[in-house]
């Protein structure tokens, strides 16, 4: 036991002290936050005030186009597709003479992209105008039309989903659970590859450096393999923890930098993209926060940690086994990894379905079978619809699964690690599995 501990310590310390670990651990959240900021910046910067010249010789839109904080519509007579730029307009909207919605097309001409949302906003205006005209043409009272439109603007109704399970009533938000499920499934998918490959490279390094034999004359191959796997798991958890702390810290700092004005601005962007328009920024923020907190984090976080670790343990020993049979040729590693990477990729594909249909048979089965359960179950859990027994069965099979893969992988590992210069086939590995000690 003491020896496993020494191996774990070495694996952990050499990796954590490595410059690339420090860089990737710190840079990734910075990159992440930077990405959010950058996209927010571009989204807001592209919403500078647009002045659109409308050529509406038929006069269909003249009275219905309403300028808003971002886009003003003008109806000058002397502007055309060639000179709108000189006249100080950012775009030219051309409605052909004698416009007929089924034959003609309306064109929006600009010298550069109008920016996210602006085009949608203009289309919304056209939609509204055409619909209003259609109503009026069919003799619908203008007052009724106005009141309907008003209702539409204020948000016609409020919608929420409530899932009843026995006596428990939970508010659920499918978009949120979709996001969390997808996000955590994706994170596990990525980390399986990152840390699985780290285990494989570590094993290959020991084999290539020819130190494996020296080490396993002091410790059992099983101890060396398990020590390495646990050491790298600890590195993974450390990295995850640092990321969470950094992201929480940075986002707290960054939100405190938002002046009410910027929040307002963000709100404007939001509305230009067609979301609910009438809430104040503070309201929106509150709603977002509450929705976020409404997720069942008390279940999601422990489950995530479990599947993160257990999923890794399930695959890590398989990666170790592959690393042990590889010779100098990296190509060989590629082809030997295929049987491991295929189920991981397949799990990811099933997960993308499972977040939408958490109760579909394929989602249920895939979340219980250990090959796919770490990724697929995390796609299902945030929906709040997963029966407790399924989670328990899934966890138990996964634990049994990783004990089994570790034992099988250890058999391949102990032979492979001392085998040089020979290409090992799957058939041979199969034979090693059934050989006694």
């Amino acid at each position, binding site marked *: 036991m003491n020896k496993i501990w020494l191996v774990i310590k070495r694996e952990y310390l050499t990796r954590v002290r490595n410059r690339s670990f420090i860089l990737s651990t710190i840079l990734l959240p910075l990159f992440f936050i930077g990405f959010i900021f950058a996209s927010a910046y571009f989204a807001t910067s592209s919403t500078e005030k647009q002045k659109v010249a409308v050529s509406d010789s038929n006069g269909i839109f003249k009275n219905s186009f309403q300028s808003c904080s971002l886009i003003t519509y003008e109806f000058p007579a002397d502007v055309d597709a060639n000179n709108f730029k000189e006249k100080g307009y950012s775009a030219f909207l051309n409605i052909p003479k004698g416009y007929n919605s089924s034959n003609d097309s309306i064109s929006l001409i600009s010298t550069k992209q109008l920016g996210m949302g602006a085009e949608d906003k203009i289309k919304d205006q056209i939609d509204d105008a055409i619909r209003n005209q259609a109503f009026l043409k069919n003799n619908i009272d203008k007052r009724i039309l106005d009141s309907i439109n008003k209702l539409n603007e204020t948000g016609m109704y409020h919608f929420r989903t409530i899932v009843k399970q026995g006596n428990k009533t939970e508010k659920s938000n499918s978009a949120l659970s979709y996001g969390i499920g997808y996000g955590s499934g994706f994170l596990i998918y990525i980390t399986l590859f990152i840390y699985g490959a780290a285990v494989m490279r570590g094993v290959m390094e020991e084999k290539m450096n020819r130190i494996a034999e020296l080490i396993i004359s002091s410790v059992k191959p099983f101890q060396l393999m398990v020590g390495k796997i646990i050491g790298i798991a600890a590195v993974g958890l450390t990295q995850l923890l640092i990321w969470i702390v950094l992201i929480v810290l940075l986002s707290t700092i960054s939100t405190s930098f938002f002046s009410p004005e910027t929040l307002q601005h963000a709100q404007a962007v939001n509305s230009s993209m067609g979301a609910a328009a009438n809430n104040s920024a503070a309201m929106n923020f509150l709603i977002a926060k509450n929705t976020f907190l409404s997720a069942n984090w008390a279940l999601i976080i422990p489950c995530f940690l479990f599947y993160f670790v257990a999923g890794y343990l399930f695959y890590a020993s398989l990666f170790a086994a592959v690393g042990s049979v590889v010779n100098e040729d990296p190509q060989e590693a590629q082809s030997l990894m295929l049987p491991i990477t295929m189920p991981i990729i397949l799990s990811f594909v099933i997960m993308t379905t499972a977040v939408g249909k958490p109760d579909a048979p394929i989602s249920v089965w895939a979340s219980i079978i250990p090959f796919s359960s770490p990724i697929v179950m995390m796609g299902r859990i945030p929906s709040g619809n997963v029966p407790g027994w399924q989670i328990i069965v899934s966890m138990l099979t996964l634990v049994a699964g990783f004990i089994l893969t570790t034992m099988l992988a250890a058999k391949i590992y102990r032979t492979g690690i001392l085998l*040089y210069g020979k290409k090992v086939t799957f058939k041979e590995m199969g034979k090693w599995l059934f050989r006694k000690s």
Partner: protein
Amino acid sequence: MTILELQNLKKYYATHKAVDDVSFSIAEGNIFGLLGPNGAGKTTLLRMITGIFYPDSGNILFEGKKFNQVNDIAKIGYMPEERGLYKKMKIGEQALYLAMLKGMSRRDAMTKIKEWFVKFEMESWWNKKVNDLSKGMGQKLQFVITVLHDPKLLILDEPFSGLDPVNSNLIKDEIYKLAQNGTTIIFSTHRMEQVEEICNNIILVNNGKKILDGSVVQVKDDFKEDIFKVGFNNLSETFLANSFNAFDILDKKDQFLTVKIKDGSRPSDVLQEILNQKADIVSFNEILPSLNDIFIKVAGKQQ
């Protein structure tokens, strides 16, 4: 006292018998040579002794008790033929890690490492990485790591392969010193001539089977063919024209004759007969077979 005893050890692979019913024992403080050509099963034998492989059948007794890897491994130092260290780990930390894996406490390990580093003039290496070392330096380090924990049984697989003469002698001297202090040494090699000068006892293996064992002196004595080399001051044709009763002349080179004593005669008969011819002898030596000759002879007979 016997430190290691192997009883009917067998290790079979799918395609061949790597070790086929090998038994021998090694007395404490011995320098023991494990000899055989490449692929004879030496490394497999060593891996079973160090607990890396389990034998298919047979027993290994260490200090009279059944070998137990967990308890006994701290008393064994093993330098595999495939040398290797972590290339990117600092040398001091690496030595410390490997010593602690052998069960040493951190403090003992530090003391020992410093001692050996001073002895081999490696003090300044502590923070260097293996990548920064020359090949010879790396091999010195490898040896130090093998003996750090004061093993009672030191197993060296081809210890001199790739060593320059300076480091070769340095390590040879250390091997002698360790043996004088009671360390038992198993020295595995296919280079028979290295063994003759170092080892007291040997075992010869070929194709997984033991073909010979005993002390170097004994083995050579068993295989000697009563051949002597006689040196003359003035070897004359008239002398050579004689016929001799006690010996046959095998070869003549310059002032030397190689002779084989006939059955029933003794070396003194040879001398007597030569002196009777008034020949002027300056030297008279027995030619013992080299281990290499013996191996070729025995292995050839086996096939």
